[in-house]
């Protein structure tokens, strides 16, 4: 399945009947979906500023709070690394790989967690948090589940960004159902807007997404206008 197909499926599942009224509620449904579909013992959406934890936006499953609390307490672990690097950290067996986090790994195993997968909410170098998944059993996610997790983290990122640029009458299904948002020109436009606003690329992306949503055009079309200098975001 293409990633747009995956995205549409997950967005439909979390914005379906009984529409969520807040980003927190939406993320709660995302974590619930992940726990149910992937037999997880925990799933959380954690927000961070740099390496400073701001708290969990949603947290489902018996181990969800345990792993995030442990990492923030010990100052090391997959979600901190994922957020700092902008890259996913996949730990299929915390019991055999203890070298990377000598304090966190044994503590997590002692608490009953054997596998953890942490994916940054980011595009580019600076993350605003992570989507964290854990299991009581060791083992890697299937390719199909890993693809779903990466797409789910993109959705979580976009949902959190929408908090910064709240649109009137937020329609999450419409806001999150954005196609073509991974084209190269979108990343170029994000960089240009960040320069225009003298802000981070994450906030620039939030502005670009909000502009696309408000105009009813695709993020790809607006990005082309930005790069061609037909549209500017200077105040």
């Amino acid at each position, binding site marked *: *399945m*293409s*990633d747009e*197909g*995956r995205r549409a499926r997950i967005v439909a599942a979390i914005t379906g009947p009984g529409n969520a009224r807040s980003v927190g509620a939406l993320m709660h449904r995302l974590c619930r979906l992940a726990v149910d579909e992937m037999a997880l013992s925990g799933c959380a959406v954690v927000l961070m500023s740099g390496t400073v934890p701001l708290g969990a936006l949603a947290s489902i499953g018996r181990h969800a709070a345990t792993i995030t609390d442990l990492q923030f307490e010990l100052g090391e672990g997959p979600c901190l690394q994922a957020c700092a690097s*902008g*890259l*996913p*950290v*996949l730990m*299929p067996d915390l019991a055999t790989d203890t070298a990377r986090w000598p304090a966190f790994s044994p503590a997590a195993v002692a608490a009953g967690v054997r596998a953890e997968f942490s994916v940054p909410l980011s*595009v*580019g*170098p*600076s993350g605003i948090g992570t989507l964290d998944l854990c299991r009581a059993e060791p083992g*890697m996610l299937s*390719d199909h589940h*890993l*693809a779903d997790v*990466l*797409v789910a983290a*993109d959705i979580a990122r976009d949902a959190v960004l929408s908090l910064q640029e709240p649109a009137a009458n937020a329609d999450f299904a419409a806001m999150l159902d954005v196609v073509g948002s*991974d*084209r*190269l*020109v979108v*990343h*170029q*436009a*994000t*960089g*240009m*807007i*960040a*320069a*225009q606003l003298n802000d981070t*690329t994450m906030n620039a992306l939030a502005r670009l997404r909000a502009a696309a949503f408000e105009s009813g055009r695709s993020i790809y079309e607006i990005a082309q206008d930005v*790069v061609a200098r037909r549209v500017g975001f200077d105040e």
Partner: protein
Amino acid sequence: MSEVTGGHARDGFASPGLEDAARPRERLLARAFVRLADTLVEEFDVVDFLQSLSSDSVEILGAEAAGVMLADPRGGLRLLASSEERMRILELFEIQGAQGPCLDAFGSGQTVQANTAEGRSRWPEFAQQAAAAGFGAMCAVPLQVRKNVIGALNLFRGTDELFSDDDLEIAQAMAGVAAIALIQERAIRERTLVSEQLEAALHSRIVIEQAKGMLAEYLVTSVDEAFILLRRYARDNNQKLTSVAIGVVDRQISSQALARPQP
């Protein structure tokens, strides 16, 4: 590839001068592989490395443009590097995430090639854009490490002349080197590492695009020119292209520093 001169076959005692003149491609190829081997010894930048590989394959195989696409662990293919950074060419590679020779080579693990007419019947939308960009014959060679197909090397010609068997063999050798460079040996045994390494490579390209946009804005230039500035700065300062891009995006490196000619 034996050369026959003056009506009778030579038996390996051709003068060096003649040999060189008759085999410019072999020399280009040898030079390209030596350069690739040099790159691999040290820690290298994945986008920079694949761009050199693309440019080398263009030169050696008589193509107009070449690009490397990689598997996104989310599904589909993404452009990682191209011999041509002009946006129109980048987009021609990019749309092959949906349709085109790259996607077919990636899906089948087999080399795919087509002339204009064949391309039009197999991939109508893609072929139209390829023709609009001035391209004729095209081929795509899978990037694979053992049985794992991780992407494809894509070549375009300005004419409609198909790539010869020798051309395709060389393209496959170059794709093989690229695949080995991208996915380290130990990663083949661990699926986790393959995914992490592919994500890291794709992440590099995203950051470079963001940095291009930022530089284009700050320096009032085009995104194409911004890429040239980024690469020049990275080479002059002996830094990885991706590290420079991250530095620009995080504002650790001033855009003005890239505008000035390096001392």
